[in-house]
């Protein structure tokens, strides 16, 4: 079992990081859980007493629960910035519903005659609550806390999107870097934590009423102790803060190259690219690792720092197609190549700007572009089979997928189905090799460094020249995976470091070397 050994090795090698991330994860889960109990329990009691509010409160908590986690985290940035605070607030909001609902259900479920007896014997409302209602509702309330705990362990993986740490760093880093061991090193401990906490709470739930009274006091203490594991990300080490994606962090043509070739030392936090640009705009971050054609570059008034030592390899986009699909759909190759040469960097940035910032739909942007380029033909509604198009989760890929879909339907008799939103490179590529999609737009640099992962020497040899890179990936993909790289579309969506334009001007930074000099002189 080669795979398992390497997973073991990876975990051993990264044990420090794993330990920190696990503690961060437990900390995030329990701080938010503790606050959720502190707020949810009284709120549940309140709506059990004043039933006219129950619909409203449970409704609001329910709606909060349905907001996608990454969207919720995104909303938090303008309000709370990045890091632990917004993550804890988001987790807290997710944990609220089960706690409020179960408290309410538990208390309203207490036998009416028992409550009446308690009142009739002369107990005050307070005494009825603490001596009758809460003890009798406790198993149900604990079941709610149990649910909330498991939800929180799961959602806490997303905390790494906004630089709050946790096991999500490994999981999402691993997905971006096509590193299964890294994914598992994050996913397995996260799953174990969920199982462990669920099990421990199930024991608490079964303890008799008597012992539970002590448990009531012990529980918050335990939760607080666990919460204290969370170490708020260490103090800022330099004047500027960088936010890099997990993918960028682990790549030779990313942070590793920055450190080796530029000697760049900057306080860095890990963050998801969906929120990174916004965080830079909100001045939560100063330097981010973006893509050179990203529309948000224009939207948020950011500037690309010149890569004066050439560490970022070319990332020319081209559709990659399974050979079996090319045989099945003979007209596919010509059709896909129609787009070749029509989109350069600035065109792509503009198209991205229209979806990312002007919020036009990718379909609209794609169609308007094709019409302007006189490439558009109305759909022939053909029935000669369905071509499955994949895309990763960002605007540019959506636009390209839409264009390809329109071209295929307009120029051939094939129908199309689009599977957009395939998380990262690994997920997209696995979908392609496993015959779940027929093609998707990929970048030469990604193909080289993430998928093929050749030796450092080979990277050195082919990685810095766009034609060499293209030729190499084309040849190797054909050989290893039976996948064809079609003609490049024309633009180069390479990694780039970017900063706010205003700040660049203020600090006089134009290149990455300028940035390094600034950091070195301003310690």
């Amino acid at each position, binding site marked *: 079992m080669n795979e398992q050994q390497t997973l073991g090795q990876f975990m051993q090698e990264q044990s420090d990081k794993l330990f920190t991330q696990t503690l961060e994860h437990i900390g995030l889960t329990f701080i938010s859980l503790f606050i959720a109990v502190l707020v949810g329990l009284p709120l549940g009691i309140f709506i059990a007493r004043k039933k006219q509010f129950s619909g409203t409160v449970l409704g609001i908590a329910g709606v909060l629960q349905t907001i996608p986690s990454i969207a919720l985290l995104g909303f938090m940035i303008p309000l709370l910035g990045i890091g632990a605070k917004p993550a804890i607030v988001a987790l807290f909001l997710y944990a609220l519903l089960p706690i409020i609902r179960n408290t309410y259900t538990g208390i309203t479920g207490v036998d009416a005659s028992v409550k009446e*007896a308690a*009142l009739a014997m002369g*107990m005050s409302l307070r005494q009825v609550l603490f001596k009758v209602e809460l003890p009798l509702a406790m198993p149900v309330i604990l079941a709610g806390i149990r649910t909330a705990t498991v939800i929180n362990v799961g959602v806490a993986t997303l905390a790494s999107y906004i630089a709050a740490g946790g096991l999500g760093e490994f999981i999402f880093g691993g997905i971006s870097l096509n590193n299964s061991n890294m994914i598992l090193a994050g996913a397995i401990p996260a799953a174990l934590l969920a199982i462990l906490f669920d099990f421990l709470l199930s024991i608490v739930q079964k303890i008799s009423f008597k012992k539970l009274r002590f448990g009531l006091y012990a529980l918050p203490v335990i939760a607080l102790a666990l919460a204290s594991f969370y170490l708020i990300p260490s103090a800022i080490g330099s004047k500027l803060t960088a936010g890099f994606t997990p993918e960028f962090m682990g790549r030779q043509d990313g942070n590793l190259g920055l450190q080796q070739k530029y000697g760049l030392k900057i306080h860095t936090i890990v963050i998801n690219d969906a929120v990174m640009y916004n965080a830079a705009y909100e001045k939560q971050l100063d330097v981010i690792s973006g893509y050179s054609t990203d529309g948000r570059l224009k939207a948020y008034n950011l500037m690309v720092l010149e890569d004066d030592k050439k560490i970022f390899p070319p990332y020319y986009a081209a559709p990659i197609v399974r050979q079996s699909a090319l045989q099945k759909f003979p007209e596919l190759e010509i059709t896909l190549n129609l787009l070749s040469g029509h989109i350069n960097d600035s065109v792509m940035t503009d198209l991205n700007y229209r979806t990312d910032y002007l919020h036009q739909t990718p379909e609209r942007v794609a169609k308007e572009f094709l019409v302007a380029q006189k490439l558009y033909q109305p759909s022939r509604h053909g029935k000669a089979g369905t071509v499955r198009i994949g895309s990763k989760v960002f605007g540019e890929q959506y636009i390209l997928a839409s264009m390809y879909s329109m071209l295929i339907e307009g120029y051939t008799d094939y129908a199309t189905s689009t599977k957009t939103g395939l998380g990262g490179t690994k997920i997209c590529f696995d979908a392609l090799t496993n015959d779940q999609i027929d093609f998707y737009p990929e970048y030469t640099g990604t193909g080289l460094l993430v998928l093929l992962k050749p030796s450092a020497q080979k990277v050195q040899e082919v990685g810095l020249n766009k034609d060499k890179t293209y030729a190499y990936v084309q040849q190797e993909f054909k050989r290893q995976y039976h996948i064809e790289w079609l003609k490049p579309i024309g633009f180069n969506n390479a990694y780039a470091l970017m900063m706010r334009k205003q700040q660049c001007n203020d600090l006089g930074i134009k290149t990455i070397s300028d940035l390094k000099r600034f950091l070195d002189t301003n310690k």
Partner: protein
Amino acid sequence: MIKVERLSKHYGQSKAVNDISFEVAEHENLILLGTSGCGKTTTLKMLNRLIEPTSGRIFINGEDVTGQPPELLRRNIGYVLQNNGLFPHYTVAENIAIVPRLLKWDDKRIKDRMHELVEKLHLPADLLAKYPAQLSGGQQQRIGLARALMADAPVLLMDEPFGALDNITRAKIQLEFKSLDELQRKTIVMVTHDVQEAFELGNRICIMDKGRIVQAGTPAELLFSPVNDFVKDFLQAQRLQLELKALTIQSIWDLLPPAIAVEGTELNIRSTESVWAAMEALKGTTRQALLIPSAANEPKTSTFEQLMAAYHQYQTSLPA
């Protein structure tokens, strides 16, 4: 002891209790009798302020019940519920001790009182450590009663206390209830829909309908001079038995034939007992006659037939 003045409880348009007044004398057992929805339970719960009235006043021992916080008021009023309302998470002993603990009795006093009650209610001592779910329905109801009696409150309110029990258990507990000396010292208001039970246990009965008291009186008054057809019809189903129970031998004394000397008659019954009791005494024995000594009059003897004839004569003599 308890005085209710023009009490009303309205829920929106519906008048659950509509302007009723009544009094309960000390050590009296007053029954609120009626069908579901007649307002009897609402009336009972207003006495200890589990429900606050829309209008009207209630005095216990001359004091307005609104004069003190409801918690303090309730600690001095025993309360027995139909579904016993025992705390499932408390042992029997803890359940019984709830009110004394609220009243801050010391442990010894609680323990002594508990043992006294356990003895009086013929409860096995090992019951105290059990949880309510481990007891039978009859035992739970006895514990419910013990809990209400524990602090020795002078007033006891009972909401269908035997309603959830099967017939045999109910008859048994009713019998215990009647013979319990603790209860003789109490002023009791009991709610029931069971006519039998009302006549068995009540000194006086209020028949209620649609939020009003239709008639209040002793069992005999209700039976023999009903104010209207409603009361008559209400009691119709079990009329004969109720009447025989309500009627004392004394009240048909003049209708009984004069005594015949029966040598060696061992069966005798006092004239204050009910006609029903006399018939029960005759049933199942070969003796044909019953000797009835009387303080004021000469003793009489009677057979079953003679008792029945006297009862019918009594009935026809009543105004129509």
